[in-house]
């Protein structure tokens, strides 16, 4: 886990949030307790596939979207 001292601010599903500097997208999923769920991940409107999450380092100011399938008609 990256150093907890240096935090960056991000936008997570439209809300401001903080994250340790150097965190990957995969780290973020673990931090919010969503690992194991099937979801789509986007960083600044670009889709990041599951196999690329560990190598995707989050930068300050990034807009991150975590999307699932929910009920709808």
């Amino acid at each position, binding site marked *: 886990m990256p150093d907890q001292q240096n935090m960056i601010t991000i936008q997570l*599903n*439209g809300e401001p949030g903080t994250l340790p500097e150097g965190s990957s997208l995969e780290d973020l999923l673990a931090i*919010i*307790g*969503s690992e194991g*769920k*099937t*979801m*789509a991940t*986007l960083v600044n*409107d670009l*889709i990041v*596939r599951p196999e690329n999450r560990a190598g995707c380092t989050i930068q300050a100011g990034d807009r991150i*979207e*975590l*999307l*699932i*399938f*929910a*009920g*709808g*008609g």
Partner: protein
Amino acid sequence: MDSLQIGTYTFSSRLILGTGKFSSAQVMLETLRASGTKLVTVALRRFNRERPGDDLFTPLSAMAGITLMPNTSGASTAAEAVQAARIARELSGSPFIKVEIHPNPQHLMPDPIETYEASKILAKEGFLVMPYIPADPVLAKRLEEAGCASVMPLGSAIGSGQGLATAEMLRIIIRESNIPVIVDAGLRSPSEAALAMEMGCSAVLVNSAVAVAGNPPAMAEAFAGAVEAGRKAFRAGIMEKSGTAVATSPLTTFLGPAS
């Protein structure tokens, strides 16, 4: 019942179900099982860790024989719908996409211009595009020419239960179409689904009528039976209407007058 063919996919059921408005995921899953449906639509939403039960991908993936048709609900422009479709394909692996663009929450009528633009782009990207549209024969034909896999005109407004208010336009769309026509939205009861199938629709998509019924699994079974009956009637050839009575028994007298 003969199977439903969309693109290269074949489905044994002509009843397509939505997954919204159910009281719980458990009731929704029971309803899908009872209906015999093979094609199910779901919406893309932001993950909320306070509501982990919202995630339907895991339980639906566990159901054998179900194909997902994600929808783009929430999009109000073609660009938003295209982005939603690409995300949905990443997530589902399914080529089906229900293009649903309704910018006005008051009436939820689909935007024909944005829907056409999005459908054209997505068809070129190899999606099996299933656009939810106003019951407009010209638009339906243009979407067919743009490469859509089907068209899904509305029977009446989403969730209204007003049935086949667009029946006469639907008849024209069905007559002119070379791709499956699926009535989507507005159906309230199984008899309306049967009528849509008798008219020659290839399938119906139902959500509210089943989800808010007193007993959703039982209502889904009733819809499945109605869809099957309507399809069989259509294939059997329904008699023409006549403006006058046409006797079914001989009218010649065979008993002499009482003496």
